[in-house]
């Protein structure tokens, strides 16, 4: 059992609070993604779980054991670094075996585990090479293999894919998802890439300026953002935000206290002639994306992005009528 509990974690650098009273429970075998822009405290939180960062106050519990003041080597964790942190003076084999040998596992067990995780990451052919003889993607695999070989209940990953080029990242993402599900460890995964977060996580904790704004399943975070920041950060294109007052005309009345409406680009039905319950918009840009078109338009003085089907190809400057799907309208403060 490796449930992670973070209780009121505070860490300051000088006057700035990297994490401001963060509490989070990550269930056993759960895949938790910490998502946020750079400087939001997600990496600090990860390093606090690893024990690489001393926190100012709060407690870290792993598997029911308070490890707040326990050094990394006694924490039952394995970690993958953004820079890979593969040891350049050791062969791939020795890199993967490094932690197992430190844990004084018997040689046969070390061999078994190294070979197993090398096979999982398909680097068996490179075992005798040095990291300098590998490509970035292969080094990344070594780093993951080294972490997976460890008999630890918690796997920590700090932006492991962000140094890979786009195509490789896509491949590796899918592969990681399968590997990590099979590995069955409690995983904490840090990223600033919302697509990665949506595709990998059981739950996503969206962070900003040292606090967790929302912690929910990917669908819930995508569909029901708690505020403008979450809605704008997740999804491509970002969620549209319009003043609630403007929607009264088409019969959408905001509940008291809410003055903003959030609606995603794919949740607007578009028509080329006037419709009741639709907003009139003037088209600024049409971007054909193959599967659909992305249209940027103006409703009154507010910009809005809309996905339309690929066959609908209006001219810039013409009008479009947009009808929000009622069950997809999100009222925000």
């Amino acid at each position, binding site marked *: 059992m490796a449930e992670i509990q973070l209780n009121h974690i505070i860490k300051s650098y000088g006057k700035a609070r990297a994490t401001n009273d963060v509490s989070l429970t990550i269930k056993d075998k759960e895949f938790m993604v910490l998502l946020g822009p750079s400087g939001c405290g997600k990496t600090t939180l990860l390093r606090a779980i690893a024990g*690489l960062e001393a926190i100012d106050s709060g407690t870290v519990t792993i598997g029911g054991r308070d490890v707040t003041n326990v050094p*990394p080597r006694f924490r039952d964790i394995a970690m993958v*670094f953004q820079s890979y942190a593969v040891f350049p*003076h050791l062969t791939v084999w020795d890199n993967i075996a490094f932690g197992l040998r*430190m844990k004084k596992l018997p040689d046969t067990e070390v061999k078994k585990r190294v070979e197993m995780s090398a096979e999982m990451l398909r680097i068996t052919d490179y075992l005798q090479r040095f990291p300098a003889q590998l490509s970035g993607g292969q080094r990344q695999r070594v780093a993951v293999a080294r972490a997976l070989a460890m008999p630890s209940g918690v796997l920590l990953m700090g932006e492991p894919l962000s140094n890979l080029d786009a195509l490789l990242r896509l491949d590796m993402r899918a592969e990681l998802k399968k590997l990590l599900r099979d590995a069955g460890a409690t995983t904490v995964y840090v990223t600033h890439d919302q697509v990665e977060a949506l595709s990998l996580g059981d739950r996503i904790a969206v962070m900003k300026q040292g606090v967790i704004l929302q912690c929910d399943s990917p669908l819930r975070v995508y569909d029901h953002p708690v505020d403008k920041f979450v809605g704008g950060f997740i999804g491509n294109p970002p969620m549209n935000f319009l003043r609630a007052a403007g929607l009264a005309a088409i019969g959408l009345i905001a509940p008291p206290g809410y003055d903003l409406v959030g609606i995603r680009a794919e949740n607007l039905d578009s028509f080329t002639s006037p419709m009741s319950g639709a907003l009139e918009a003037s088209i600024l840009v049409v971007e054909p994306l193959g599967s659909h078109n992305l249209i940027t338009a103006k409703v009154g003085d507010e910009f809005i992005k809309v996905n339309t089907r690929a066959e609908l190809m209006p001219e810039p400057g013409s009008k479009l009528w947009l009808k929000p799907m009622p069950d997809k309208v999100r009222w925000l403060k």
Partner: protein
Amino acid sequence: MKGLKLSRVLTYVGAVLMALWILVPIWLIAVSAFSTRQGIFDFPKALLPNPFSADTMSFFLGATNVLPSAGRSVVVAIITIVISSVIGAPAGYALARFNFRGRDVFRLVIVSTRAFPIVILSIPIAVAYIQLGINDNVFSLALMHCALALPFTVLVTSSVFAGVPRDLEEAAETLGCSPLQAFMRVVLPLALPGLAAATLFTFVLSWNEVFASVILTSRNRTLPALLVAQLDESPLNYKYAGGFFLLAPSMVFMLFIRKYLFTLWGRVSR
């Protein structure tokens, strides 16, 4: 465009002049050290010694006191290396890894110790050494050389350690290492070439050091001190041979450690 070209030409002219400033004396010494006794007085000089002769060098090495002094120089250098590494390398590591209050000031202070001319310090130091009864002794001279070498040791080793990413050390710690084990198993192997370079630098510094050696030794002279003491009374070929003998190790070592000296002020990790 034209102005840019002119400044480029001037830069190159300046660089060539500076290179000549250093290289011509070295060339002069090297050619003379391998010429015959008569060849030393030839003018103009040939680019390479002609005829090539080891007579001058063997005459020098056979002279009284030269080999014992050279031996003492090596002993002093080795003691200097040991002491300055033991004290300097940890300081270098701390400068490279820890962002402590006053780090930049500390760095500056280290450099500024080199601003005190040894000439001014030498008299009080000599007096102190004599009062303590530790003058004319290889160990106490090595102590002095340590004081001279330490600023370099600290700065060079700090740039060496800064070149080993912090991530590697942290990765080792997550893989079951204590901080000391992480240092021994990961940082040290990776820093070794750079540390070796720092060691060579210290060797050269001690090997070539004249002033403190002259002041602090009398009977147990190191080689540079011996040569300086005999400068007035020795023949020209002896001087050239001695000069070359002192020069040679530095030249060879500089080739090896060049790239580390360039990164003396290199990046410092967080």
